[in-house]
């Protein structure tokens, strides 16, 4: 406590009158020691980001810090003058943001943006500044540092951009670094590199890191101490060991309970089930930028993929962004037309050979649940109409379709009255339930779920996964489940196909793949899962 370099005392941040609660942060106190990583965990709306911004004095206009103190090395930042605050920013405390693409100015080079820090706070000569920047870039493990000086943000990968941001935050050797979900927008393998970087840099430079995240895996990976926030209040805090393995507060317990375990549950498929979906030789290539014969960039999104799913099985398609898994899913559902290959559904109908008209009749057998709860429902339609429209298009009478919609709403855990409401009146988790109801309205035999829970908070995620599993069992559905989250895949899927760069590099039962991954990529993927050595203490069966 006495070693605290950042001491937040009874901080309160007011929200504007139209918000759903009066304060973003209520009477919260937190300390960060001189040489540790403190992870602040919470779901969306917990106030963790607001608190971080309050420290830097970066609150948006309509939020006001109305009480408490923020002591940085003894100085109260809440009462500092604007010019003192500007001095402190970057040199004593700096911040790293979530989205490196938008957090960097797109029209300035990396070198110029980092140089700005030095220009502002030091009196070094240009040559000295350049030397320091290059040294810093090397220490965040960016190769080819000289060339990067003149590169623009859009020329770098996501991981490189984030490393550049870290370099920018560290260049003045601040005592405190605040990282606001810095790896959330990154791939799992990239994320593990950045997390390792954070750990190493913190150890080497003995700085205090306030690391905000929603992912307990990340907490398990790097935290020394943990603070849990809910609805703007601090709910529990302690060492990582205490919180992760013996949480005391009910909310913390529920959060941890919602984290899926990496240990795959056992396979529960019937033996000798028939094959309901068979994909062979599927290929999809995108041509970008070329027109009227001019050559453009060619991207082979899907390179000759084969897979098959048996009745009642859940096949997981696992991969990082750019692996082609979403494209593959869309090719199977024929939202996107593949160049080559066959997609045979159920009774030997190859969807690829059907004309658009004939295809329409067959579409009902294989339906999709989408990722984005905010973009997957037409904002101008009532929920009831959204669900009933599918059956109506296929010839079901309107009254029958509406009653089916009501039944489905109850099936997914919503009220019948929801049918008269509009999507914007529901939360993200509820919207995903509506999306599931819509997909079920046509009574498909195969459900393709494209990252259905990736955009949801962890506790809501667990509920929706439970719902999916429940429905799958009740309606005897076959599922193709696409995800980048290996924990989710472990709990939901019977079989796993690992996709990388348009190809399936490994295919097999979940338990085998997690226990003995054979392909190098699968191994690196599993090695990159944050907190893989930590087993969440309670794991209610998601099955």
């Amino acid at each position: 406590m006495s070693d605290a370099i950042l001491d937040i005392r009874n901080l309160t941040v007011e929200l504007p009158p139209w918000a759903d609660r009066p304060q973003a942060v209520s009477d919260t106190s937190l300390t960060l020691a001189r040489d540790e990583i403190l992870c602040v965990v919470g779901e969306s709306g917990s106030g963790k980001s607001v608190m971080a911004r309050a420290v830097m004095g970066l609150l948006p206009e309509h939020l006001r810090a109305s009480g408490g103190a923020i002591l940085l090395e003894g100085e109260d930042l809440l009462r500092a003058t604007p010019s003192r605050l500007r001095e402190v920013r970057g040199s004593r405390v700096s911040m790293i943001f979530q989205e490196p693409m938008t957090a960097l100015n797109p029209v300035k080079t990396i070198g110029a943006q980092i140089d700005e820090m030095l220009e502002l706070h030091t009196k070094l000569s240009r040559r000295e500044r350049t030397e320091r920047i290059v040294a810093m870039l090397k220490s965040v493990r960016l190769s080819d540092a000289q060339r990067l000086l003149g590169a623009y943000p859009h020329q770098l990968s996501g991981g490189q951009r984030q490393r550049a941001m870290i370099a920018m935050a560290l260049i003045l050797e601040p005592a405190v670094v605040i990282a606001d979900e810095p790896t959330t927008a990154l791939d799992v393998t990239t994320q593990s590199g950045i997390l390792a970087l954070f750990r190493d840099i913190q150890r080497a430079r003995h700085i205090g890191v306030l690391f905000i995240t929603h992912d307990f895996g990340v907490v398990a990976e790097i935290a020394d101490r943990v603070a849990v926030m809910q609805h703007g209040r601090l709910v529990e805090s302690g060492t990582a060991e205490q919180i992760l393995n013996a949480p005391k507060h009910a909310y913390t317990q529920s959060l941890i309970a919602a984290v899926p375990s990496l240990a795959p549950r056992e396979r529960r498929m019937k033996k000798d089930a028939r094959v309901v979906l068979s994909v062979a030789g599927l290929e999809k290539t995108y041509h970008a930028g070329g027109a009227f014969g001019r050559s453009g960039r060619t991207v082979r999104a899907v390179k000759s993929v084969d897979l098959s799913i048996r009745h009642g099985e859940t096949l997981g398609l696992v991969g990082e962004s750019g692996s082609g898994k979403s494209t593959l899913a869309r090719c199977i559902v024929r939202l996107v037309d593949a160049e080559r290959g066959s997609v045979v559904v159920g009774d030997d109908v190859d969807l690829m050979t059907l004309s658009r008209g004939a295809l329409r009749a067959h579409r009902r057998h294989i339906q999709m649940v989408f990722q984005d709860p905010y973009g997957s429902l037409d904002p101008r339609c009532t929920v009831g109409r959204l669900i009933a429209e599918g059956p109506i298009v296929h010839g079901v009478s309107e009254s029958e379709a509406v009653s089916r919609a009501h039944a489905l709403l109850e099936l997914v855990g919503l009220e019948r009255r929801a049918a008269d409401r509009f999507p914007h009146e529901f939360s993200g988790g509820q919207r995903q339930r509506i999306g599931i109801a819509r997909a079920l309205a046509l009574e498909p035999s195969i459900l393709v779920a494209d990252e259905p829970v990736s955009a949801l908070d962890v506790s809501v995620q667990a509920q929706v996964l439970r719902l999916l599993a429940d429905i799958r069992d009740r309606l005897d559905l076959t599922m193709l489940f696409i995800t980048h989250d290996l924990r989710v895949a472990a709990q939901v899927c019977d079989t796993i196909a690992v996709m990388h760069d348009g190809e399936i590099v490994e295919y097999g039962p979940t338990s085998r793949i997690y226990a003995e991954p054979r392909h190098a990529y699968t191994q690196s993927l599993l090695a990159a899962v944050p907190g893989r050595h930590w087993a969440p203490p309670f794991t209610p069966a998601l099955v």
Partner: protein
Amino acid sequence: MSVARDRARYIGRRVAQAVPAILLIVTLNFLLVHLAPGNAADVLAGEAGSATPQYMAYLRHQFGLDQPLYVQYLEYLKNVVTFDLGYSFRESMPVRDLIFQRLGPTLLLMGTTIVLSIGLGVLLGIFAATKPGSLRDNAISVFALVSYATPLFWVGLMLIVLFAIDLRWLPTSGMVNIAAFYTGWQKVGDVARHLVLPAVTLSLFYMALYVRLMRSSMLEQSGMDYVVTARSKGLTEHAITYRHVLRNASLPVVTMAGVQIGNLLGGSVVVETVFGWPGIGLLAFKALFARDLNLLLGIFFVAACLVIVVNIIVDVIYTLLDPRIRLR
């Protein structure tokens, strides 16, 4: 540097792309003539009584009107490509010479207008955006709103009434004081005095456009994430506005400037008519009055080519400003 070479290649590609555009315009001209009701030669000659038999014969020859359509088209195409834009009966000069004679004043007027409207528009837009909701923001916004709604010809006429007739500060029309035979710097000053009112008139509308655009662009950029990052580095608001936001915010203005060139030329017809400014706009008006369609088509063609050239220049400027554009 390979970037320079890429850029040269980009320019070459754009020029090559311009060719089919020009072709389309020529075709459009051709179609327009033949779409008109009545005999094409009559249409081209204007009022029936004003054309001599020689001129009618000349027109028939020029446009090959007694030949099949595609032959006429090829003839016309050939003529245009060799810059033979025909002959103006009224002015007794080849159209080409007539146009090039008048191109200078129009370019002067347009150049001044572009500098004035973009310069002032950007400045006022920044002014307004840096203190949104303030008195100066509201004043600038109201000014822009009213200017945007005002017809060009009316502004010109009212300015003449105020500055030339009532106050007698500036001349009422023309480009030079013909009686005074100025040379050298005095001539420049004379032209400048005559340029003031036409340039201000033409600029007012477009300046309003750029003010509104710049203001909303600045406000939009100010909400972007990289601004928060810049603030977290300890930059002053002033530095953030001028070193980070400005360049990003001005990109849409550059794009819009390119789009507006065509409209600017159209506006110059009205302004040059009101002020008697001897450019191709006034020429177009006179051609209209005299129903000299041949001349009008020639002006249209040259104007379109001008727009294409300026668009290429604007595109290149844009690539200099925005590093995200792939020159490939």
